[in-house]
């Protein structure tokens, strides 16, 4: 199979000039916004986005056009751009905000226009120091250029855009926790129902939360049409996606590919992309969509990189970050690391996630450090079951948000796929990889 790179959102990332307004304009920047506010109605844009079948790129993969159509009628509605990206090994938005901040601003403005937002907030991970600086500079330039503020490009459309830095908690990427945080409260996720952002969102008003990459696609869609966008990809997965490839590959990095045209194997082994593994190494496991996703085995490398295609094998494409683990990796340790991340990053609100997360982490640590017991494997599976009844995929949950159900993903798949390795740890009283 040939590789199908196609650049929509990452087309400027290698052009350092494009970070500033002039460079951005020189590469066609703000044409889409101009067209949107001067020539297109909000409905027309919404139609285009619906046609495009633009799945959300933040993790849940919900179609943007459908989400917009569910926005409750109200005098005041908000648009919030989620740039919190704090999941381990997820770094695609990081690149977009640093290397093409104007594209994000333009995309956000198009979305704001399309949904009739009263104000736009961009919530950016606090640790993105350079990203914050660049997005703020882009916003300032855009104000001066007339792309934000009163009567944008002479049209009737006026809107303000506010950049808000996060304060260092992964959970604030969860959209309702993000809204709480924006409101100045602790980042505790809200319960859905009733707090679906599109119904009761920021300050109680209907709100659309979209990911940085999701809206970065909008300028292209406005210029080329939703139909053109949906020419790329297959099924529900249209357009392209940025895959953040990391782990035991020669060339880790962000790669934009047309959806559903390539497999994990293509991405990992193509010399232009992952470049394969270190000499003599084999793929042991792949995490296909961020650390919340159940793992895939070496026998599943031919699965196509598409939302439904990955779902069909019991995992998810999630945030599009792919972690490759080769045969030198200890699976217990890897699963423990992820458990530790979730135990620390649980907001602590609900019992199963708060207590289950730290309990599972402690048991995993015990096994890895040599004090495991055989019954710990059943215990772990049952602790997982108390967070995700049935330990099935897609997960049911006993918790408020889906951070909780993310905990079992790694632990349960590691046990299921590498039970022997766990037993070896227990038998040898320590990690055989040390």
């Amino acid at each position: 199979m040939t590789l199908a790179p196609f650049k929509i959102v990452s087309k400027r990332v290698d052009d350092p000039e494009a970070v500033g307004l002039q460079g951005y304009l020189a590469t066609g920047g703000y044409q889409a916004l101009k067209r949107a506010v001067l020539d297109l109605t909000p409905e027309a844009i919404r139609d285009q986005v619906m046609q495009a079948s633009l799945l959300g790129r933040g993790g849940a993969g919900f179609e943007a056009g459908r989400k917009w159509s569910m926005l409750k009628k109200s005098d005041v509605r908000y648009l919030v751009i989620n740039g919190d990206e704090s999941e381990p090994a997820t770094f695609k938005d990081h690149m977009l905000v640093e290397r093409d901040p104007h594209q994000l601003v333009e995309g956000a403005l198009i979305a704001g226009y399309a949904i009739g937002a009263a104000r736009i907030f961009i919530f950016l991970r606090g640790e993105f120091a350079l990203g914050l600086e660049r997005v703020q500079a882009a916003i300032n330039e855009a104000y001066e250029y007339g792309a934000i503020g009163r009567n944008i490009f002479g049209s009737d459309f006026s809107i303000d855009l506010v950049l808000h830095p996060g304060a260092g908690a992964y959970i604030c990427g969860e959209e309702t926790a993000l809204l709480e945080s924006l409101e100045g409260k602790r980042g505790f996720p809200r319960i859905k129902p009733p707090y679906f952002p599109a119904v009761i969102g920021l300050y109680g008003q209907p709100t659309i939360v979209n990911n940085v990459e999701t809206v970065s696609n909008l300028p292209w869609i406005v210029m080329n049409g939703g139909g053109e966008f949906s020419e790329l990809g297959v099924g529900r997965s249209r357009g392209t996606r940025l895959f953040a490839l990391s782990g035991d590959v020669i060339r880790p990095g962000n790669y934009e590919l047309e959806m559903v045209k390539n497999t994990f194997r293509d991405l990992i082994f193509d010399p232009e992309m992952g470049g394969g593994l270190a000499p003599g190494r084999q793929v042991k496991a792949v995490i296909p969509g961020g650390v919340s996703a159940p793992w895939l085995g070496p026998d599943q490398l031919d699965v196509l990189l598409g939302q439904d295609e990955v779902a069909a094998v019991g995992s998810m494409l999630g945030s599009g970050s792919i972690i490759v683990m080769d045969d030198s990796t200890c699976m217990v340790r890897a699963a423990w690391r992820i458990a530790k991340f979730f135990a620390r990053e649980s907001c602590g609100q609900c019992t199963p996630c708060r207590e289950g997360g730290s309990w599972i982490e402690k048991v995993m640590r015990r096994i890895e450090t040599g004090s495991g017991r055989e019954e710990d494997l059943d215990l772990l599976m049952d602790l997982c079951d108390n967070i995700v009844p049935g330990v099935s995929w897609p997960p049911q949950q006993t918790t408020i948000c889906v951070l909780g159900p993310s905990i079992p993903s790694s632990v349960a798949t590691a046990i299921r796929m590498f039970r022997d390795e766990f037993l070896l740890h227990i038998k040898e009283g320590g990690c055989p990889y040390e």
Partner: protein
Amino acid sequence: MNDSDATVKLVVDGHEIQAKPGEMIIAAAEKAGVLIPRFCYHPRLEPVGVCRMCLVEVKGPRGFSLQPACYLPVAEGMEVVTNSDKAKKAQDGVLEYLLANHPLDCPVCDKGGECPLQDQTFVYGPGESRFVEEKRHYPKPIPISKLVYLDRERCIQCDRCTRFADDVAGEALINFIGRGGSIQVNTFPDKPFSSYFSGNTVQICPVGALTATPYRFKARPWDLEQVESTCVGCSVGCQIVVQSSENELVRYLGLDSEAVNHSWLCDKGRFGFESVNSSDRLGTPTIRNGTAAKEASWTEAMAKLAEPLNRARKRPESIAIIGGAHLANEDLYVWSKLAKSIFGTDSVDAQLGDGLDPRLLTRTNRATIADAVGAEVLVLLSGDIREELPVLFLRLREAAISSGLKIVELTHAATSLTPNAAASIVVSPGQVEATVRSLVEQSGQEPSDPSIAVAKAIIAGADPNRIVVLAGRMNQAGSSLDQERAIATLIDAKPGSKLLSGLRRANVNGAIDMGFVPGHLPGRCALTEGSKELIDAWKQVPTQIGRSTPEILAAAANGEIDVLFLIGADPISDAPDPELSERALAKVGTVVSVETLPNASTRFASIILPAAAFTERMGSTTNVESRISLLGQKLVSFGLSRPEWMIAVEIAAAIGEDLGFESMHDVWRELSVVSPLHRGLSLQALGSPGTREGVLVPVRRSRVSIASNRSLDPVATPGIISVEHSGPPSSSGTGRGSDAYPGIEANASAVESVDSRISGDLLDLLATPNEVAPIGSGDLVPVLRRRLFDGGTMLVRSKNLTELAPAPRVTVGGSTAASMGFAAGSKVTLSNGTSELPDLELVVDRGVADGVVVVDLDGESGLTRRVIQGENLRLTIKLESV
């Protein structure tokens, strides 16, 4: 069918049940007898759905899924399964998780035996823990205020305390910090959890994480005895249970009364019981000759009293009684009869010159708390309600925030309700009547003060029948006439409006209803309005209106009073002029003190008669809204002390008279005949299950729709049924849903007779105002303000509350401070020209009127009153060198 009658049908565990729209599954199921386990859910808090203990299976479009029953409202046709294997596995799992890091120090935990975590683990939880890891550790309990300890190891992060503090009390002083497994409840650095309402967090904590100093390690639940009662810390009338162990009071818990306190108490009410246990309690009659005091028997004491009393009876106006607000209704009736019928004196005053003209209460349509929170507009003409009637503050705040009550406040300084007020008008003393006039009078021009303009529009636009005036005392200094005229002006201008009493002392409202104020007879009757039955029973009533407390004291200082009874009263600390009180008490031949505890005035008494405390006797009390509720007896009375009504009977007997009472039932038999207000009531009727929240008088309808909704929910208020209850928790609401006062007949003619005395012209009853002296330059008009912890007798004797009384401070407005060049925090001396009060901290508050100085009223010795007394008083403040 209106909204409130609408029902939703759903199926819970195979049975069809009915519920109110919007009700959460957990509450609907509970009413149908299905108890779903819970921790974070509390019927008086907004749900948060965090503990996940209440997970049940609910059928949705994609089949059954686990949902939090506390967070999902019922819907027509909904199917809920609470006991499926899947639901039980989830509940079991949550409990095991909660116990994983729990220290399990039940044997040394105060909650042990009444702990929702223990109890629900017993019923729903796993038998054994599979947790073999190191538990989470924190230093064992840390004090987060002078009253409350926090043990973070025991905390299950249910968010109850934090929600209470933030949502109910409006002070987010405790909050979560950290996240994940290291999330913890804590205070902000350097900011203690000093809230008037902190005890409620202890009450609702479902584990032993929050404990209160007065109860720590005092008793085990299985040793407790309990009785239901009414708090008399102030006149809100919060419903409580009183718990004792080995004849010692150990704890009060708030009962969930729909009408009054929604289960909340203030810390003064909750912890003030310690004064009953005080080692200073008076337990023996004492006779003093000159400086020598000796303990005596009741017989000796009565003999000692008979002689001067017999002499004084020849001139009834030489006998006077001050006090009574701390008595039960039954005492007040008997004392009223003793004074007015036997002694023949009307110089009886339950107020101490710090209240209001009683006619404002006896000649107006009175509002209930429900009327006030359900009103369109509530006009506050009172002190700071949080300081004076704390739990009423919680109710009003909630109504202003969540049910659209518009509060219009007239005040001399910003209050705790100012942030929730639709309009807050800062007025100077002496200007209240004029300000009210500008609010209600038609005039072409728009008032220049924007807050007056807003208030005027609000009042003009409101249905007069839905205006309630909360009438208390805005200023403890100077005359109350201006303020009384303001209240009357407002009520006269808005026929149909109602008055909610803001008189704060325990049973002062009951005292007024029992005629224990000058010019009145029981049942809100004037001296000339006594019923035929009353005249039959009493034979005689005074014809001359008697003296009020300040007048009694002035007359006493003049040598006109021979026998002065102080019953539960300390005029030196509480009457406006402590020096006058001292002179008066020194001059009176026979001062008789009827008291539970000694105070500044008892040292002038030649006879001290020990009275039983509230928890040591039966009786009833009347709250601000005329609700009569019972006092429970939990202890045997201390020493030789007796209830005050018995003391009155003894005194009558000592002078050869028979009041005709041998029991409190006798008292009610007479009272319910002679007093139109109390007609039809009896002690039995008050004690029946359907009247456990108390009875509003006059009883207007025999089938009233206030559900007696007193619930004993051991998960909402752990410990509340610890005595009667063992085994798995259940919600044994008593009298729930009852819509009548069983055994009590409404009496139309009695209601009419009470109502007929309400005329349309209240203002005509009041005196005309005196000239107000102009304010000289540098002079400040004093406002004396009450604080909850004021160092009063009860507080001083409650060892855990004593320290909470802040030193009195002096507060001025920004421009006053600026014009005088004073900075906040400086030490100042207050001077009235002749005497001075040094070493006061100066506070600057923009909410204080110009030219006004607000001084905190302090406790037992009447310190601040010594500088602030008399009318037309002007003060100066001087900066002290630092």
